[in-house]
């Protein structure tokens, strides 16, 4: 160090590390850290985050969607075997239960987003709602002119596609 006593043997003086942070443009002129001799500095500890903590919502939604598909296949199978049963309407609604779980997880995740992510989602939802309205109205006019009737269940996948694409686009805009 430069403030060492002048009578000290230079060979005994601690060697000042010149580049404690070579990646930083702000070169530190002094360091209070003791010089480590004969060993490499230990790497910073890995963040104590597991896959479960990082991707909890994605895993839960994935499991709920898996349950939805299993319930859907089971429901359709049972309904085909019992087309005239009195309880067929209840069985037809069984896949809604895991879908409600997906909705709950989705809303919970929205509440966990930070302010920029919420803004991106607002923009994406707005775009997907408007674009879906545009497409469905346009096709409604085409149906009036003779195009074949499409099932209403196409609307949600259409909106989901617009939402996914617009989320990616709006996220990119803030990069």
């Amino acid at each position: 160090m430069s403030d060492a006593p002048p009578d000290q043997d230079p060979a005994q003086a601690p060697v000042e590390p010149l580049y404690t942070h070579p990646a930083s443009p702000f070169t530190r002129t002094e360091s209070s850290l003791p010089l480590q001799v004969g060993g490499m500095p230990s790497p910073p500890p890995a963040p104590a985050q597991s896959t479960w903590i990082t991707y909890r919502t994605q895993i839960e939604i994935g499991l709920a969607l898996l349950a939805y598909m299993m319930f859907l296949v089971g429901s359709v199978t049972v309904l085909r075997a019992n087309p005239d049963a009195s309880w067929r309407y209840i069985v037809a609604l069984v896949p809604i239960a895991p879908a409600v779980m997906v909705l709950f997880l989705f809303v919970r995740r929205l509440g966990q987003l930070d302010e920029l992510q919420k803004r991106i989602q607002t923009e994406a939802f707005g775009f997907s709602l408007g674009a879906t309205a545009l497409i469905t109205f346009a096709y409604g006019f085409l149906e009036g002119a003779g195009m074949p009737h499409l099932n209403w269940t196409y609307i949600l996948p259409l909106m989901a596609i617009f939402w996914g694409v617009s989320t990616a686009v709006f996220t990119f805009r803030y990069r």
Partner: protein
Amino acid sequence: MKNRLRVLRAELDWSQAELADRLGVSRQTVNAIETGKYDPSLPLAFSLARTFKRRIEEIFDEADSASGEGSSAKAAP
């Protein structure tokens, strides 16, 4: 809005992810603020000020930026 976030962060040798952890936001949000594409809310601006132990005016410059995103009314003296 221009800001000195990148400089202040570099002085402390923090990564964007580290600052994001301290603020409780995503790394993407820290990056968007640094690049001037997103102006933080008042609570987040105060969190930044507390984190860097500086006044908000020392971090953010109210001079117009190119993006003008989220520009708010300037405080009257």
